[in-house]
């Protein structure tokens, strides 16, 4: 069923566009123009995170950390391979996309760890970034909003891993 969603979604949009006499090609170009800017914008973030992470892996510190976290994580059903991803997720969106690609590369895109990682990244947000951006210097005290969002995100991580066992 899932396989149909995205192609059907695109087809439906094209159809609605055609019915409502929208110049679909022009509209597509208009949107697609932003792609290069966006890719250029995230490149330095991706590079910074992936360089640091590559060193962290190669040095052997990553496996030490994963070993240290594994009792808690395995108790909660989180694969140890996702330790770095879970730490970086609330802080950097492009960083977590980078780490997600790393999990795909090292574990295989159809492994349990990769599926869980996909669901974790797909169902959460960069909490700190959103709070800082939306607060925009205007909000001085968040009155627990950030703590609540972080807690919900971590609960969501556990839920994601659990769901991937059944779905």
């Amino acid at each position: 069923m899932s396989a149909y969603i995205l192609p059907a979604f695109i087809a439906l949009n094209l159809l609605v566009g055609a019915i409502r006499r929208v110049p679909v090609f022009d509209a597509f170009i208009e949107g697609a123009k932003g792609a290069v800017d966006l890719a250029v914008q995230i490149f330095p973030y991706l590079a910074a995170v992936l360089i640091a992470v590559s060193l962290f892996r190669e040095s052997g510190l990553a496996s030490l950390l994963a070993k240290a976290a594994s009792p808690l994580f395995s108790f909660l059903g989180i694969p140890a391979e996702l330790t770095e991803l879970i730490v970086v997720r609330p802080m950097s969106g492009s960083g977590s996309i980078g780490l997600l690609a790393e999990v795909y590369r090292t574990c295989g895109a159809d492994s349990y760890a990769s599926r869980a990682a996909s669901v974790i990244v797909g169902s959460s947000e960069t909490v700190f970034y959103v709070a800082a951006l939306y607060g925009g210097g205007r909000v001085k005290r968040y009155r627990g909003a950030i703590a609540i969002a972080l807690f919900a995100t971590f609960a969501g991580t556990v839920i994601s891993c659990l769901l991937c066992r059944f779905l």
Partner: protein
Amino acid sequence: MNVVFFVLFFASLAYMLFTDPTGATAAALVGAENAVELSVKMLAVYVLWLGVLGVMRRNGVANFISLLFRPITKRAFKGETPETQRLIAENLAANFLGIGSAATPLGIEAVKAMQGDRGEATDHTALFIVINACGVQLLPATIIALRQQAGSNSPADIFLPTVISTLLTATIGVTLVLLTRGRRKGARREIAP
């Protein structure tokens, strides 16, 4: 992020100076190469989905989805002006579709309107920030595309768990905000009689 970056980078380098000094710069370059490769992949994903989003903005679908959110925002953000409620509905719709770049300016405007010149987050601002920070994204198009590029046999099979997880996460966040809201009001009254 600055702290995390420093700790990862510095600790790894310091450790490798003892264990494997020649491998250090090589490892850094491998990371940079991965970033180059991934950016090119992401560019392909972006150009497809931003193109589709361009169509959605023109054909009225994006508008239609924000209309669907109106009844919810009217209830949850009661007392805000209709203009602010419209901004919130459009922000939620953009998040829902995974258009972060469109959601951000709308969200900033909405917070501006709800806060006025108060420095402490109002109940509505807290609720709004938590909803946004819990990432109510229902179309994980980027992730599905990325997974496809990584050679997955059924890249879209994460759709259902993602939708369930995102809704549960947001529910937990919203419930906690609403629960602590009453407690906070009580606490404030005690402090300032």
